[in-house]
């Protein structure tokens, strides 16, 4: 599956959190690629390991309690998991940047916006003070903030949530990264602001021709921006493929259930479908397919054997043998 041309290629990544008497397998064998100039969406209910996957790419999983239990993270064909701390610092913010879910708490309250953006520039590049100021202003302009010179002197509490998220985006763009990871960047914002931020990210991605790994629990967002989609469930990739393939012909019961629970015009006035049950605690996942207790297509095998990936061609894979060619898909032990 690993395509050599991919910018980022995550292979069989496993991240566990150990506590005194249990091991939470938050990410349990995840593989996906992000190609150049591609927007890949990582979708799944909350608690299924999306943030941990993103933090692993950044080398920011807190260790301990976390532990990278296996796999590779190839960025430009080099395994980031082999990098030492100072090599990783040169990657972070410079080649891979991350935008976080909570704009309200992700900026340091005691430093000005100018300080915080300028710092992101200076850590990786040599620039004079006036160049830094000029660049920071340009960045703020790029993310659609009015009166950038004044805003640079503001503290985070003087800005609204949407403006702060724009600042976070500006900060992420400071060193022209090849890959931007956006972890639910609009979840904490209200709906109109969400749409603006989404459009902004989309424009910037095209303008700067960078790759984006966009994390969300909202399939509605996905249809607007994704090139490819990875559906994640309980620490594994349930299904992945091109946007249209996954949204129009979903092959995993979990993807189908997520789509069924989306509101749309035809369903107006009806009760919305919701998936019964909840995401399992990563320390106590059911045997076999982790989704089987909530699945409508469960057969005997599902609770006993681990499902294998089934190939639908053109990069479309789903980890559900039951729905594959009348149940002839492969199972692992």
């Amino acid at each position, binding site marked *: 599956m690993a395509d050599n041309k991919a910018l980022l290629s995550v292979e069989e990544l496993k991240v566990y959190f150990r506590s005194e008497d249990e091991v939470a397998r938050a990410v349990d064998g995840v593989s996906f690629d992000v190609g150049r100039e591609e927007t890949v969406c990582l979708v799944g209910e909350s608690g299924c390991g999306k943030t941990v996957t993103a933090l692993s790419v950044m080398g920011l999983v807190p260790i301990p309690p976390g532990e990278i239990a296996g796999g590779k993270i190839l960025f430009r064909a080099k395994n980031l998991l082999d990098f030492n701390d*100072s090599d990783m610092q040169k990657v972070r913010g410079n080649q891979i940047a991350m935008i*976080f879910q909570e704009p309200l708490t992700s900026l*340091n*309250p*005691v430093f000005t916006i100018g300080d915080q953006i300028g*710092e*992101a520039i200076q*850590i990786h590049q040599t620039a004079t003070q006036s160049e830094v100021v000029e660049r920071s202003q340009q960045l703020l302009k790029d993310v659609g903030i009015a009166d950038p010179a004044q805003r640079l002197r503001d503290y985070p509490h003087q800005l609204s949530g949407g403006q702060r998220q724009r600042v*976070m985006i500006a900060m992420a763009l400071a060193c022209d990264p090849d890959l931007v990871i956006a972890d639910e960047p609009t979840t904490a914002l209200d709906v109109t602001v969400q749409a603006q931020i989404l459009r902004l990210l989309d424009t910037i991605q095209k303008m700067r021709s960078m790759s984006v790994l966009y994390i969300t629990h909202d399939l509605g967002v996905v249809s607007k921006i994704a090139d490819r989609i990875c559906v994640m469930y309980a620490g594994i990739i349930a299904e992945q493929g091109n946007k249209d393939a996954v949204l129009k012909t979903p092959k995993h019961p979990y993807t189908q259930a997520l789509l069924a629970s989306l509101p749309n015009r035809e369903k107006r006035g009806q009760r919305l479908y919701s998936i019964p049950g909840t995401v399992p605690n990563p320390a106590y996942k059911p045997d076999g397919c982790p989704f089987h207790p909530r699945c409508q297509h469960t057969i005997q095998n599902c609770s006993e054997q681990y499902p294998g990936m089934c190939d639908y061609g053109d990069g479309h894979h789903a980890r559900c043998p039951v729905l594959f060619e009348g149940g002839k898909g492969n199972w692992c032990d």
Partner: protein
Amino acid sequence: MISFIGRSIVQKIITLFFVSIVSFLIIHLAPGEPSQVDPMNPKFTREMVERFRTEFHLDKPLYRQYLYFFRDLFSGKTISWKDNQPVFKKIWERFLNSLPLFIVGTILTWTISFPVGIRSAIFRGGIYDRSSTFFAYLLISIPGFFFAYILIIFVVNQFHVPVIGMETFGIGDTAWMNRAMDRIWHLLLPSLLGATGGIAVLSRYVRSQMLEVEGQDYVRTAKAKGLTPDQVHYKHALRNALLPFVTMFGLILPGLIGGSVIIESIFAWPGMGRMAYEAILARDYPIILTLNFVSAVLVLIGTFISDLLYLVVDPRIRL
């Protein structure tokens, strides 16, 4: 800004007024009276007691006594009932004695607690963290007086220097070098002992503040930028962790009076803490009340300073 300062000063004066009433009442409601301090003393005849009571207005109603006291206080005429010395002069002398103890103790406390607490937080769970935790709890649980005696015995036996009092008796004639060394030796032990409890508590507090801040989202953002661990810890985390200590910084001033009673007693150090203690035993109301008033003023000045400092260090606070 100006209006904030004005408002704050008015508030503090009102507070001071209520504090003065309450402390006056507490002292007068406490059992015992100055005229009864030594009923066995044959010189204390009934007439003597009566004369004493009239002279110091003890026969007047409480509110009159209160007014008399503050009239004397503000005109600087308050005198000690024990030796008829002006109270301000006595307090000033003792204050000058307490000051070096207080300054050295405070410097020791703050310069040791912060590096220890910060390091423990950054390397939490490590050997450094665990041993500093152990010592902190050890210092908290050993009573100060016990620790003091152990240290005194140790220093006297090992270095053969006397440490009781402010200076060695009869040292006045020797060269100034010897006298300076002597003063430093006498100062070091009580300051260190006075500081131990503070170091133990403050370093734990610094550690917990730092730990809390290290878990904040903006620290993760700082790491995600590719900053070095030093920049993350000492710029982004520390700056936020320090904010609450600005408040404490304002509150150390009152420690000048109450903070050192035990240490001053053990080391026979003629400071303010001991003076207060002796005054209470002797029911020397003018001294007790004046010290009370002065420490209330110090508390209010301290909080005022920390309010101002907060304005400077925390951009979120605007007027």
